[in-house]
């Protein structure tokens, strides 16, 4: 929900400042912080002799990453496919629901509470049911991702479709533009920056959906590796897989952000990056 608020309030605040005059780039600061935390972690493990199966040191995780690189890479590949397909389908579902709610107003008013109700069902609990219905392959993971990730897309897209300046709609109507024309030419393009905000949330949900889906029943993927490693008390492997999941999620997130920059260059910039026009 905070996503919508951010979009709503900053839609006019298109402030772009030049890059000059910034002493330390954010990236360097972030990297520095990461190094500090990692070193502290490593020192704490060594100082207090924490057993590896409880919490491995960063060095042990890195060693594991290198040793199991082939296995992790192939697991990452199948998880990435699930995330990608699930995210695409979730986005499509979210957009279609938003368009239906806006285009068929009365039906939309009836549908909307049901969608919100459905959103409050704990989706993670649905994973075993999907396994039961769709088997162990790709299908149950994708369905799980769709039900987890479509909601922010629908909500943000709706906010965009409905937040067109009423006076501008009146202007269009006054010259005889049809509702369909207003939807196609004004509401949909207007909603794209909102949609992108929803997609950014959806992609992170998609990663969670894929892992949970693999937990519930799978024979490949990073979630399966984590599940398997935990039965073996192979904590370094769990953490190595977690590192890969994080990197994968980050990569997907920045892909969506890249798409935003290319497709919706007029989108308000409300993230922490300062971009030069």
């Amino acid at each position: 929900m905070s996503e919508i608020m951010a979009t709503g309030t900053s839609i006019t605040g298109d402030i772009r400042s030049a890059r000059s005059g910034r002493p330390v780039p954010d990236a360097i600061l972030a990297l520095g912080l990461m190094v500090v935390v990692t070193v502290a972690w490593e020192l704490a493990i060594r100082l207090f002799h924490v057993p590896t199966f409880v919490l491995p040191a960063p060095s042990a995780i890195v060693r594991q990453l290198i040793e199991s690189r082939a296995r992790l890479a192939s697991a990452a590949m199948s998880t990435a496919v699930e995330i990608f397909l699930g995210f695409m389908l979730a986005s499509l579902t979210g957009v279609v629901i938003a368009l239906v709610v806006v285009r068929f107003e009365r039906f939309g008013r009836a549908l909307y509470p049901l969608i919100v109700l459905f959103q409050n069902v704990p989706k993670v609990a649905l994973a075993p049911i999907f396994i039961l219905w769709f088997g162990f392959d790709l299908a149950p993971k994708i369905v799980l991702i769709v039900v987890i990730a479509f909601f922010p897309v629908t909500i943000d897209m709706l906010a965009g479709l409905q937040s067109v300046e009423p006076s501008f709609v009146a202007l269009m109507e006054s010259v005889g533009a049809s509702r369909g024309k207003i939807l196609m030419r004004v509401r949909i393009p207007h909603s794209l920056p909102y949609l992108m905000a929803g997609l950014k949330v959806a992609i992170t949900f998609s990663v969670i959906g894929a892992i949970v889906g693999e937990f519930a029943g799978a024979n490949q993927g990073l979630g399966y590796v984590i599940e398997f490693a935990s039965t073996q008390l192979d904590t370094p492997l769990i953490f190595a897989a977690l590192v890969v999941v994080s990197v994968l999620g980050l990569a997907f997130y920045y892909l969506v952000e890249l798409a935003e920059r290319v497709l919706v260059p007029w989108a308000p910039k409300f993230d922490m990056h300062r971009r030069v026009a």
Partner: protein
Amino acid sequence: MSVLSVAQALPAGDVSSAATVAPAHIDARNIAVDFLLEGRRQRVLNGINLAVPKGSFVSLIGPSGCGKSTLLKVLAGLITPTEGQVTVDGIPPHEAAKRRVIGLAFQDATLLPWKNALENAAFLLQSADGSLSNADSIAKAAAMLKLVDLDGVERKMPSQLSGGMRQRVAIARALALDPQVLLMDEPFGALDAITREEMCRCLLDIWERTGKTIVLVTHSIDEAIFLSREVHVMGTSPARIIESLPIALPQPRSDDSFSEPTFKAAEKRLRALLFESKRGPA
């Protein structure tokens, strides 16, 4: 212009009561508007009579909440009055709008952020019923951008334009419809004082060059006197026109207009009326 002559001939033939005087370009008779507020009917406009001659420039001025924007929306056909009749160019305003007789500008420029100045100026014309070809619309929009002194910024995006420039694009967008009537709701309300004056001059220039019928809703006494042939002062509770003041400043208006005794007299009168109306029901 053949449409115009037909439209003007209509009331004379059909409406016997209107046949005695030349029909006004914008004619509002006995307008009343009720809004439903929290389930209760509230009268926001009452007994409004307004006749704007063709090619005239009139202003509606009054305190906030006096219903001047509502009246403008009635004239534009965006609100159907509860009582009374409106004609613009002899036909109901929503029909007139569809035939592109009416151009509209609001306080916010409401430009589309994903389209450049030229595309924005052409957008309404392209969206209109039975619109021109794309190339014709763009050509028309380009000419209108020139008219509002914006040649050279056609390719700029709205975020790259100043507030005054954005408002000019919005005016060009309205003008591109080639309307006979231009209705403006505080189009300069969001601009700084210097830009406002520039925009006033620009609007005056447009009016002198095109001879359109213009109705301007404004808060500014100076603006109203400087631009208008007639200023209608509105009062609250019930919202109505309390006085229609003709402005007999010599044409064309210029910076000297501000120092004319007529200007000073009109300013004094308007000020008195506005503060009187603010005090509530007389």
